[in-house]
């Protein structure tokens, strides 16, 4: 990008009118703000990205795309693969949470919910590349959400 787009006079005047309460906030601005606000999970514990060690002793010179997110009592491991420009996400919550736990893979525009296997595994296929977060909802404990992460192809 060469430079951030500068604000022109018309936009500046519009912004002043808005902040002075003279004009209503345009519907799409409010909707976008609400959508972003709706992505918050105030009660969830955030699992933050941690480093994974590079695998050794395998017959591949490839870097696998493994991501690990850790919270105090829970780790979420993810593997990102892509096909035809879409993303497949596979992962595991460990230790496996209690029965009835489920994960949601959230992108900015859609949310896919999956039951966890007894070993804490899940997968979602065909996601668009971009921002995502995985939330693990547990019946007896607080939810754990990974920090928002961007998948690029």
């Amino acid at each position, binding site marked *: 990008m*060469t430079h951030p787009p500068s604000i022109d006079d018309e936009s500046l005047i519009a912004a002043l009118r808005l902040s002075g309460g003279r004009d209503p906030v345009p519907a799409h601005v409010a909707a976008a703000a609400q959508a972003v606000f709706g992505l918050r999970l105030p009660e969830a514990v955030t699992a933050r990205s941690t480093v994974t060690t590079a695998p050794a002793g395998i*017959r591949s010179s490839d870097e696998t795309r493994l991501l690990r997110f850790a919270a105090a009592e829970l780790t979420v491991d993810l593997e990102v693969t892509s096909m*035809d*420009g879409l993303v497949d996400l596979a992962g595991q919550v460990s230790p496996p949470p209690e029965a009835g736990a489920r994960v949601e893979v959230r992108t900015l*525009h859609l949310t896919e919910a999956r039951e966890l296997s007894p*070993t804490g*595994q899940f*997968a979602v296929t065909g996601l668009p590349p971009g921002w995502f977060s995985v939330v693990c909802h547990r019946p007896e404990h607080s939810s754990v959400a990974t920090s928002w992460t961007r998948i690029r192809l």
Partner: protein
Amino acid sequence: MIIDAVAAAEHAVDLSSRAPTRALALARSVLRHVSVGDPHGEAAVIAYRALAVAARELGDLPLAEEHLRQAVSLAVSADLPHRAAQARLSLVHIRTELGHPQQALTIADAAEPHLTPVEVAKLGVHRAVALARLGRYAEAVGHCDRAVEALGDDVGFLAGAMLNRGLARVFLGEFEAAEADLTRCAELARGAGLDHVLTLAEGNLPFLAARRGDLPAAFTAYRRAESSLSGYPERLATMRCDLAEALIAAHLPGEARVLLDLAVPELAAAGANIALAEARLLLAQAELHTGDPHLARQSAERAAADLAAQGRTVLAPLAAEILLRARLMLGPPSGELLAELLLCVEALDAAGHRQVSRALRFAAAEVALQLGARPTADEQLAHLASSGPDVVTRQATALQRALAGDRRGAFAAVRAGLAEVGAGATAFEDPMLRAHAVRAGEPLARFGLALALKTGRGRTLLAWTERWRAVAGGPGRPVAPDVDELCAALGDAALVEFVRHADELVAVVVTRDRVALRRLCPFPAAAEATVRLRYGLRRAHLLDGRAPGLAGEAALLERLLFGSMRGRLGDRPLVIVPTGALHTLPWPILPMNAGRPVTVAAGAAAWLAGRRTRAVREGGVVAVAGPGLRCAEAEADMVGSCHPGAERVTAQRGEVLAALDRAGVVHLAAHGTFAPRSPLLSGIDLDDGPLMAYDLLRLRTPPSLVVLSACDTGMARAPADGAPLGLAGTFLSLGSQCVVASLVPVRDEETLTLMTVFHGLLATGHPPARALAMASGKTGVAGFVCFGYGDQPVATGREGSVTQLDQDPT
């Protein structure tokens, strides 16, 4: 002094499109030495114009406009009408790109009276851009025609005129004339050292190629253009949009989306509103085709608003089309929606988007059928069936006949359409492009499958899925194998061919005496279970201490994929023909397959073809040890000691390729890589670089058996069923009978253990599929799969092994 400053400023203008950064420096130094209003004002006007053109080249359209406005107002206040008109001349182009093509034409009219004849010709070149953006292509060509006559030897503008005329002609569908213009533009630019114009011309040749349907040229040149345009973000973004358009045409919307996600913010930052509107239109298409109707609707709405504001009525119906298709995906159809569809069809026709309008008309007919509006459906189908001919004509004819109860006639129309698609695709030598080119026939193939499924007959479904596989990856003709030959060839084995129809997974099970159809789980469930299983297997092999429970996942997948047919299959050897994501499943890991010979084939016909090539191959065994692995040398030595007379070949690309052309069996122990975006770039590491699937396309007589003892070498991406692309698939499509390769990362030492047992069994006459099953059972090492035809024992040089070749493998 005055003369000097003016001359320096003129020189900056000359430089501005060729060497924008140098032009900026020169123009700035001119401006430092003159002040506004003094007698040097004329030089300042020219210098601002130079700054503007340079800024435009560097991708800052708003800044370019600002400089030109400054130039115009200086010129007007200094009473220099000619200089003002020159600045306006440049402004025509900038206002167009900023999204005001109509206004740009008004500016051109204001400038024209004050310009010299040559400058009027230059103005014509800029007008052509505005006219083309408004969809007035014929007028654009006219302006360029007149400009070419008047421009004389101004190579820069002559090249520009050729470029703009060529592009307008692409849109008019006059491909040959367009190619001549673009080629001439490239020649002129090359001769004059106008590298930048040269890149644009060369970048537009593939745009032309893509519009014509010639994708290989499009891909190659866009990749080249990407590097040469790295300093020009806005031009690069425009180029990415062109490539994205080609990718959408090649049915690769996901890849297109990735490029557009990069291009859209760049164009927005540059203020390139005219290109931005088109980019958003393409993005909406890509989003729609990747199953994201919500986003597609948003992007299409923004594109529609931009196009309307820019007065671009020719493109507006394309945005409307996407909006309607998004609505079709998001909710149930209604009479109101049908009416809108039909209106949009008319608008598309009127604007000259014939292909899009035909496809939408077919969609409208389908909606009419859903709503029970049979007369409307009949009318639209009759319209489509009587015009063409193209894939949509065949679709419409097939649907018409099916509605009339003429299933045989419907099948005939599908077959005829598939034959046309297949014939068109055989022009591509590159298997990847061929596989993508046939995707135009996917709607027809789907229709054929749907009709076949309705019959409930396994034989019919097998025939139709095989016809499509033959078009996509085989002979290019919709031919189905002889079922009786297949049944006889299977002997005690069973073939399970998986077929995906929309979200449903179906299997055809073929045994010696029966062809049965089985409806299985929803396809996404199988795909996700496959991803989970692969994840578990990968983690187990990477030994990161958190290997999840594989057994549960494998058992679940087995239930989903084989359910009720498990009992029927007993312990027969299996031939599996996967579909979609199932191409990435390591089949032997399913519990029912423990100890069972399993072979994975691209189709029943492909398996039969592998079986037919049972002739004894001349040439012995070759082993190669790639670099950077502890156990590779030991493994190659082991292969040598298992098969007397085996040859060791150094891990050099040339030597390995030569060995692949002369040996009967080749074992490669090395690092492997799968490239999901371009599966033919998947490779095996050798000492002097990777041996890629593309390199293999040169082989004339590939080995009968190839063992790829490396990670991920069996992985494939199948853009269309029947054409799995990757290393194993490439060997098989070239004529190898069998490939043993891995679908996951494999551990160095464990692989040596597995391969030692495997080669020992091969050497004693066991065919590869059985040897692999036994070796996996004995060592507990999973991940490898036998592809192709795995029942042929191998001539390994050991006494007695050749007599094994004469045995019937069943």
